[in-house]
């Protein structure tokens, strides 16, 4: 029987395309960073985004989520939907003025309704039992699923944390928007947690995977299918909401922040 240590050390997908994507992205980011100065914080965000991407798609987490554990699968989704796009957006150099906006995306991408609907919609959509199963069995569908989660996550975070400071959502509006995102994900989490129906029936079937690993997960870790699904739902519900809550606090801090002299001074004088 495999040990937990063996799982952590040996079960990496070395041939996953995720490595190539991360390498390419690093190259692009380095080139971009040479042309436009980035802060250490932005570099850190990029590193986190890249590392999270690899962890989600090429680490033991990805192996476990492929057919052994629903909660690992949920963790993968959360990383792809929440952490990767958020950190990727924050890694981008800020631009103060609208005029230098050379990264213009089609306008619907930046709107709140689209952001909320795509991200919450993507989560709900991929947890319809039939689609969940399909994504597990067909690598093409899995690729679509992965891309759609990252894109939906980007659509969600973009209006709040886009690099053009002037065009970001008003902080108090952003707080309400993020809370709405938290509600959308919480509802799915609550549904999955309490539902006696299996959201991804394939995990319950247990077959298909390596017997050793299946036994490790179910027996040594004590992760019965019921517990596994509850754990998945709770991950979607509680830690996911903590991410939204953190973002709310970040936007509130910018809400209380007073812009420095530049335009403040004139208003200050006008008030005199």
């Amino acid at each position, binding site marked *: 029987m495999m040990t937990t240590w063996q799982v952590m050390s040996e079960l990496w997908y070395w041939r996953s395309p995720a490595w190539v994507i991360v390498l390419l992205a690093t190259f692009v980011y380095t080139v971009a960073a040479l042309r436009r100065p980035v802060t250490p914080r932005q570099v850190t965000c990029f590193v986190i985004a890249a590392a999270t991407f690899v962890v989600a798609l090429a680490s033991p987490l990805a192996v476990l989520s492929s057919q052994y554990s629903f909660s690992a699968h949920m963790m993968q989704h959360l990383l792809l939907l929440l952490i990767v796009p958020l950190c990727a957006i924050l890694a981008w150099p800020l631009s103060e003025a609208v005029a230098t906006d050379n990264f213009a995306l089609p306008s619907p991408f930046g709107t709140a309704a689209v952001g909320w609907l795509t991200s919450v919609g993507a989560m709900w959509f991929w947890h319809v039992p039939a689609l969940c199963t399909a994504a597990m069995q067909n690598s093409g569908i899995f690729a679509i699923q992965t891309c759609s989660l990252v894109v939906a996550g980007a659509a969600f975070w973009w209006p709040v944390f886009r690099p053009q400071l002037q065009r970001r959502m008003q902080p108090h509006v952003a707080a309400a928007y993020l809370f709405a995102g938290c509600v959308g994900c919480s509802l799915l989490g609550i549904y999955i*947690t309490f539902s006696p129906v299996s959201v991804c029936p394939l995990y319950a079937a247990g077959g298909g995977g390596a017997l050793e690993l299946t036994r490790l997960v179910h027996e040594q870790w004590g992760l019965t299918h019921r517990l596994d699904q509850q754990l998945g739902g*709770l991950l979607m519900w509680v830690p996911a909401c903590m991410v939204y*809550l953190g973002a*709310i606090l970040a936007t509130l801090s910018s809400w209380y922040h007073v812009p420095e002299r530049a335009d403040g001074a004139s208003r200050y004088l006008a*008030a005199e």
Partner: protein
Amino acid sequence: MTAGSIANSQPDERGLSAESSLLGWFSSVDHKQIGLLYICTALVFLLIGGAEAIAIRLQLVVPNNTLIGPSLFNQLFTMHGTTMVFLVGMPILTGFANYLVPLMIGASDVAFPRLNAFGYWLVPLGGILLHYSFLTGSAPNAGWFNYAPLSERAYSSLQGVDYWLIALLVLGIGSVSSAINLIVTIILRRAPGMSLQRVPLFVWMMFITSILIILAIPALNSALVLLLIDRTLGSAFFDASRGGNSLLWQHYFWIFGHPEVYILALPAFGMISEVIPVFSRKPIYGYEFVAASTVAIGILSMGVWAHHMFAVGLGPAYDAFFAIGSLLIAIPTGLKVFNWTATLWGGSIRLTTSMCFAIAFLVQFVIGGLTGVMFAVAPIDWQLTDTYFVVAHFHYVLFGGTIFALFAGGFYWFPKMTGRLLDERLGKITFWLMVIGFNMTFFVQHFLGLMGMPRRTYTYGDHPGWFALNAISTAGAFFMGAGVLVFLWNVLRTLRIGEAAGDNPWDAFTLEWATTSPPHEQNFAQVPEVKSRRPVWDMNHPDLADWKLSRTPEDRRRPHSAARLASAAFIVSEAMFFLLLVSAYVVFNRTTGESSAARVLEVGRTALFTLLLLASSITLWRAERALRAFDQDGFLRWLGVTLGLGALFLINQGVEYAGLLHRGITISSSLFGSTFFTVTGFHGLHVLAGLVALAILFVLGKRGALTGRRSDVLGAIGYYWHFVDVVWIVVFSIVYLRVLS
């Protein structure tokens, strides 16, 4: 009181007009009078709830006591809890908010004065309903959280629980209406310059509290209507013996119940955040952190309800996550305590009675908070739940915390409300009686709880130490009773011969101190300029004005339609209500049974009428457009079509109901019937309410009265109508299309 005497009475020298006559109080829509009515009503119920508490303590003073039998004891602790939460805590905080929020933001009144009066008058109505139950044979006796199945008809056959349910529905509706009013007031009615980042912390905390109220109270309301349907129409939502689920009551109750703790605590935090800076002669330390941590508390409080349910055995995964979530709340709460302490640090402290209560609040609230953190750890909870340790814990939070904050706020704002200063010597006596009495009563209950004394049991055996500790506890209750009486004497004495206060007796900072004490009807002759968080300080100390030393965000453009904003807030609360009703449907209709949706519902026909209902949203949008374009005929035509489509939808629902009833499917025949009729019935009622509102607008439009600001009302009702359509899309997908099955 005759009309003549009202007409003859002259405004007195403080600018109070004839409206201060008795009839004036009954018919008042002035936020200050309504605020005082709330506070006085809550004080009356405080005496009633306090008397119940004294009776409970008398029964428990010696072991094996027979003073009060078990049946009356159950009624007493149920009524004590219910009274203190719903008839004292909520109304008195709403009262303070009503009185102070408009003054603090420099407004002349709340956004909807008549709605305000409506919300107040529901409090006495609910209180009378609840207490009327004593005359029906038994007051409610199933505890303040009224767990099913004990509260079901089979185990509580008398009418007490029915009165409890109806009274809480009435009070809940009042709370939601006053919360919506406060939200709109705070967003729209602030004086120029008063940005949301500059409002006094009490106002900010009431804002967050009001949002919590519109999210949490509807959860209680949906639980109440489900239990009421169980008890009166014979359904079985919470009756496990007929397929229902008693745990569902616990979930629903605590989805409301946990935010409720913060609904009672946040306004108290707000009061403390006003009192401590003024009596330390310093601005609050870390305003931004106190404000932002309130948001964090509000959000976290919505997601940790199951820590009240560790003992029911949800499973290790639930326990772990809810324990962590609950522990996290300690962070923003602890942050506030540090901020208050840091405000005291290095300040020139004036130990007025108000400040003494605020400091006692700090100490006692920390104790209550720490025992709360203990309860977040599931194994400790298993050991201590339903013992006196719990009683001690929440009394430290709600009495040692909230009530002490209310005393602090009471002594602080009394001169503003009446123009006279409460006597400080009597105040200090009150303070010491309360501190000693409170800690005597409740500190020893920690030990009783650890020794295993169960709460809600009418007596106890003569175990070693129990008698002494209980006797101390009861003695403490009398100290507190005496404290309250001294306080009331102080109030009555001050009203007669109290020292005149002047506008700003404490040299305080916020706008309410910039007007007369008590304020005249319009509140302010002229609102001072607001350029910082402490406008009155700036006014009195121009050289040290806050805005010269540090800047705060400027006031921005704000929305202008009060009607639409109120409608949006109302929709949020309605969404929560429907969310829980639909959840009940999902819980009880996972399997396809004998009379399940798949077999009995005609999906095709309802789909057709669904389209008609959706079309009515479009026609209403056209009507709005026509009204904006001053096209009277077009407006009436489109509104007429909307009314027709809505009516057709309801007629179809009636036909469908008749068919189901004909086949023997009723609200009591099966859980499908119960959930189906409840969900679609409540939706139908909402459609009906929308139709009535639109019909009124139709009549007004025909008379040509829908002009100017009134046309906003159409927009507000439009929001509501679209919302009802969206709810139907959800109901249709889940009930008819069975997307979640």
